[in-house]
């Protein structure tokens, strides 16, 4: 058992990791002999393989990461010379004697970050006049700039949500990490459930849901367009078996599915295009795949058409131009075959997803993205069982207000709540504790609720609207 947990904690080739320097993160895949760029440096990640996750490395010349020394030196806390306040410190920009070139020289000489900071301190004419607090702040600031320590982290929702929010918020519709946290909890996302996810936040929300499912249960991703987007999901580095629980289903087939008229055996549009492309090169098409798709008739036709061409090709195969033609035809054939195989895989996946959705007993619905939430939720809620939570994220409040109204009209939901979270970080230092100077302006909004059995009778018992009627205006003798 121990061996497995150690293995789990060790960096291996091919792993998806997150590089961290100060508060900057980047998700990369560990591949030998491959350079990655991070914080304006090119790095080789070969030396991190075999090390534990969470290890910090020094960037050596050439971009290799060096394993750290066993005992990192802590700044000796000797009583330094310090001033009382800044009344006599003039900020003329001339207190630092080292020039930019001098610092570059030091860097080239291979001086470590800490040593450069030491040099800066010694060459600053005002350092010893600063107060102790100002000195600490100065050291912290220089360390942040010159310390070249990179930590290799195991990906998690926390780290990836922080990364995306800091680096590419537009890709995730400005979903702030605390908002994502609320969604996962409000949605009661847990192992063994069946959750429907609509995610146009690069797949970050999907990944977060999958992490909380732990490979148990199933996740069905509904997607617009041709393919589901999962760039962020890959960054989580989930093991293979997690992907067995991940399904996808295209939005454009939802109505058919709801109608009960979805048939995935004969999809004429898809097969027609395949036939067009492979025309003239289908002579060697394997009969099994053709039969599976129910195109037996068309397939046979193709082979019949193709054979005379093949005959002519064989006859004239000695000439170089014809050899080229042969090769091109073979490539076309391969491509067409690949496409057919892919389409068959896709069809199978859609069938699996449809089977899961058909029961209309999903345990939850999570929507996050740039699509208008109202039509999405009104349609997708049909697949959710009663007494199950649903969560909708939107960067803007107004669409969710409309959604709230429409859901009230629809009925079959209780506990509707429109909310946002307010997040504030603190600096905690002796005698210097206060909230951070900069804080996030907003992190998006959430509309959440719980499904209940739909009302079939129009009136059964007293009306219990959750929304109190708007106050009536005091009218001033209008009825005259």
């Amino acid at each position, binding site marked *: 058992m121990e061996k497995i947990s150690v293995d789990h904690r060790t960096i291996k080739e091919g792993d998806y990791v997150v590089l961290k320097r100060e508060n900057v993160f980047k998700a990369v895949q560990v591949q030998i002999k491959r350079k990655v760029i991070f914080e304006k440096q090119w790095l080789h990640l070969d030396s991190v393989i075999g090390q*534990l996750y969470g290890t910090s490395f020094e960037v050596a010349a050439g971009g290799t990461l060096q394993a750290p020394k066993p005992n990192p030196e802590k700044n000796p806390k000797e009583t330094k010379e310090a001033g009382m306040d800044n009344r006599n410190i003039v900020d003329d920009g001339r207190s630092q004697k080292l020039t930019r070139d001098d610092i570059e020289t030091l860097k080239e000489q291979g001086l470590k970050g800490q040593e450069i900071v030491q040099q800066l301190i010694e060459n600053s004419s005002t350092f010893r006049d600063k107060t102790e607090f100002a000195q600490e702040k100065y050291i912290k600031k220089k360390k942040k700039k010159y310390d070249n320590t990179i930590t290799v982290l195991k990906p998690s929702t926390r780290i990836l949500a922080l990364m995306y929010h800091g680096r590419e918020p537009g890709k995730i519709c400005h979903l702030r990490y605390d908002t994502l946290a609320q969604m996962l909890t409000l949605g009661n996302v847990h192992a063994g459930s069946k959750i429907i996810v609509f995610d146009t936040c690069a797949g970050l929300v999907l990944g977060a849901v999958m992490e909380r499912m732990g490979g148990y249960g199933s996740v069905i991703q509904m997607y617009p367009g041709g393919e589901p987007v999962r760039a962020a999901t890959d960054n989580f580095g989930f093991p293979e078996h997690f992907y067995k629980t991940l399904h996808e289903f295209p939005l454009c087939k939802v109505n058919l599915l709801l109608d009960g008229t979805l048939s995935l055996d004969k999809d004429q549009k898809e097969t027609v295009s395949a036939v067009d492309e492979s025309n003239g090169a289908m002579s060697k098409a394997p009969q099994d795949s053709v039969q599976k798709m129910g195109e037996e008739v068309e397939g046979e036709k193709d082979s019949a058409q193709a054979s005379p061409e093949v005959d002519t090709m064989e006859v004239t195969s000695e000439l170089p131009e014809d050899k080229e033609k042969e090769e091109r035809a073979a490539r076309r054939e391969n491509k067409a075959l690949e496409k057919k195989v892919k389409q068959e895989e896709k069809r199978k996946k859609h069938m699996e997803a449809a089977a899961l959705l058909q029961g209309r007993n999903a345990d939850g619905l999570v929507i996050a993205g740039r699509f208008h939430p109202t039509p999405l939720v009104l349609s997708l809620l049909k697949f959710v069982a009663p007494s199950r939570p649903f969560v909708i994220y939107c960067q803007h409040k107004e669409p969710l*207000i409309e959604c709230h109204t429409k859901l009230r009209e629809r009925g079959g939901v209780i506990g509707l709540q429109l909310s946002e979270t307010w997040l504030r970080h603190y600096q905690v230092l*002796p005698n210097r504790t206060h909230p951070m100077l900069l804080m996030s302006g907003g992190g998006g909004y959430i509309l959440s609720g719980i499904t209940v059995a739909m009302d079939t009778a129009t009136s059964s018992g007293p009306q219990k609207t959750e929304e109190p009627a708007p106050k009536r205006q005091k009218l001033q003798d209008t009825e005259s």
Partner: protein
Amino acid sequence: MSFVEYGEYIQEGDIAIVFLGRESMFPVKAQHGTQTQTKYGVIRHSSDLIGKRFGSKVNCSKGGWVYVLHPTPELWTQNLPHRTQILYSTDISMITMMLELKPGSVVCESGTGSGSLSHAIIRTIAPTGHLYTVEFHEQRAEKAAEEFLEHKVAHLATVKNQDVCKEGFGVVGVADAVFLDIPSPWEAIGHAKAALKEEGGRMCSFSPCIEQVQRTCLAMDELGFKEISTLEVLLRVYDVRSVSLQLPDFGMETQVEGDPKETCTGQQATAICKSGVTPKDMAGHTGYLTFATKSLL
């Protein structure tokens, strides 16, 4: 059904949440022959609950109706009997994500209190994780253990009745995450570090007062914890309503012969729009959350 697994129909012994309205719900244990009183009438368990689908509408004797919901840790938090001040879902969500909890995680927690966070943790770490929870108050520790049993999650939790500051969590080197919600967390940081796995883990301390936070951060730093970060998170709720705004009467456009007073049309026009109205009060503070990472290097 259980708190970690959805069920479809209410069975004897199940907990169900009776929902009368947003501010009015309570948990009930389904038992044959039992009755539950509500302001809309009586609910007879044998005929009205057992065998019904979760989420159904149940008609009560006086003609009114209620919904019966499947329990979740979130609904439990809103309805559990308070033995202490509890953590609410907003903080719980943040803690869950920042401690990187997921199925299989091993977590140490103190104090157990009323079990609000405990239920949420158990739900997240199921089916393969474990929660070691420590409570120094004997009756509260017993009550927590009883509840876990009743909610069919006892196999996922171990309750210890001891003082975490003096004796720790009862386990060492096994936890992925540690959570502290105690008066003097700085006294338990050493035990937290010991409980965490050798290769590293995450910890969190929740304190209402900034002085506690300062002492805790110092202790974390001294014991080699990294990435020490303190934050607070608050929930802002909007009440979606139609609001009616009166439109002003600027008078007639053309002068009418006769009494000048007649220029006021006397029309009462209103415009209606949908708004997310803020409540009069909101929770302004629950506590500060301090997170940190234990790592080898």
